[in-house]
């Protein structure tokens, strides 16, 4: 059944969109991520303008992160003071990302910047994830015990001033890297249409030594708030959020996430990380092919006013 998407200005099969929502939701539930880095490219690949895809996916991620934030809240797995401090950086970063988005769009460079950012970010992160997961799997095969990398050793980050104690996570760190991480995630997220969970969780673990008990719950709160504010900001400045498209995606997404979460519980952590790494790398490579191989259609059309 074809429906007409009012803002994307395109007739699309409603079942295809719902299936995409389900599939991405399944993956996001399985790995505990928002899934924006998959949804935005998928929408671009089915012909929705990158600008509309980025703006709309932010509301889709807001819905899926809302659902998981609530369940982490019930389990008391959120460090609220850490989340609030991340949010200060996050909202400033989001505003910066939306500002750059608008600027690039008027300079007609947005599509290129989105594609390049996806290639660079996803290939790098995917590569790192795969090599880390492969090493972990090798270690378990060789029978060595898995060394949990949460030693008390201090990095240069711990030498920074303005130290704050976060009781729930039992960490004592400078406010600077916390604000910085929030800023980066908000900025990248609103520019690229991703929640940034797959970046944020490793950053919180490696740079701030946030324990596993609170890391995912806290990161979900940041994702929720940055993506909700990105939705409002994109709607207010660029008028490109397609509410109908978002609704179909988010309904599919929250249902898929439930099944994904169940599937994920039966898998080993290293295997999950390896799979996620392959997925991230795959999307990055797909974007690389798109801009490196001569396209069959060289011409494209858009209205002078929008798109």
């Amino acid at each position: 059944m074809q429906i007409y998407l009012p803002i994307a200005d395109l007739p699309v099969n409603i079942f295809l969109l719902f299936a995409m929502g389900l599939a991405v939701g399944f993956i996001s539930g399985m790995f505990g991520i928002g899934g924006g880095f998959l949804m935005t490219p998928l929408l671009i690949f089915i012909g929705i303008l990158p600008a509309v895809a980025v703006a709309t996916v932010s509301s889709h991620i807001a819905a899926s992160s809302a659902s998981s934030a609530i369940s982490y809240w019930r389990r008391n797995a959120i460090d609220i003071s850490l989340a609030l401090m991340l949010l200060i950086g996050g909202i400033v970063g989001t505003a910066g990302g939306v500002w750059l988005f608008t600027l690039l769009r008027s300079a007609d460079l947005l599509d290129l910047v989105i594609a390049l950012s996806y290639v660079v970010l996803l290939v790098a992160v995917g590569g790192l994830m795969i090599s880390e997961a492969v090493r972990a799997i090798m270690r378990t095969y060789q029978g060595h015990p898995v060394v949990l990398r949460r030693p008390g050793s201090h990095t240069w980050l711990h030498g920074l001033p303005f130290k704050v104690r976060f009781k729930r996570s039992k960490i004592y760190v400078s406010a600077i890297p916390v604000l910085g991480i929030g800023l980066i995630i908000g900025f990248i997220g609103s520019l690229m249409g991703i929640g940034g969970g797959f970046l944020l969780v490793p950053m919180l673990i490696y740079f701030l030594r946030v324990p596993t008990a609170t890391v995912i719950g806290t990161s979900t709160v940041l994702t929720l708030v940055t993506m909700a504010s990105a939705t409002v900001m994109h709607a207010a400045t660029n008028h490109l959020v397609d509410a109908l498209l978002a609704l179909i995606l988010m309904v599919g997404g929250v249902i898929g996430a439930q099944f994904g979460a169940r599937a994920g519980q039966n898998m080993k952590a290293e295997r999950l990380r390896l799979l996620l790494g392959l997925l991230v790398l795959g999307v990055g490579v797909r974007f690389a092919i798109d801009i490196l191989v001569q396209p069959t259609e060289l011409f494209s059309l858009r209205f002078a006013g929008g798109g």
Partner: protein
Amino acid sequence: MKRIAILILTLLTLTASPAAAERLITSLSSHQVLVSSSFTGTELVLFGAIERDGATPFPRKSGYNIIVTVSGPRETLVVRRKDRLAGIWTNVESNSFLDAPLYLAVLSNKPLDEIAPAEMLRRLDIGMNVVPGVHVAAGIESGEETFRDALIRLRKQRKLYVEDPAGVTFITPTLFRASIRLPAESPVGVYDIDVRLFAENANIARASSALEVVKVGVEQFIVTAARDHGVVYGLFTTLMALLTGWFASVVFRRD
């Protein structure tokens, strides 16, 4: 003497044929198309009759030909062309077409070049000539597709530009029908319909009509809200997202 007079009269009518010897009368099946979110396109039928005054010989040597041009609302369209830049394929050049019709259908009963010479069609602004040309066409090597050709081709792919040399059917020698197909993506606005009657390589009569495409329902509401009340619309979309998330967490609660 009387026979000579008739002969002269006939010759006069023949040479002065564009002087409205025929009249064109048209009627459209509907002048308004309502687009809702389930709209999958529609087809309108244009009926036309050719009325002759008594003095016009019938049939004309070449018979009658009809060209129907339907042109939708106009807007500036930008055609972008990808090229390799530092190993990356990206939009490098672009050309703007001011006041290009967003929809264009050229329907006729036979190929246009068999109806009238190309030069005449261009002068009368008939067929794909409706699409404006560009003043600056930089960087295009000869033999390559021009931006204008690309514009027409891309619009044709989406069925928003149509050229159908069998789109007009003669039911009787003086009665014809044309079917105007409007795809799901048809833009909102007023569409001008220009019907021209040709005979012996000349345009001998003309009639015009119009139709309007109007969006109704949720769809139009969303478009207006997003454009005119961005912040409220954004807040509403966010609220919808939060409610969906909350609803899911209630429905699928496991603990």
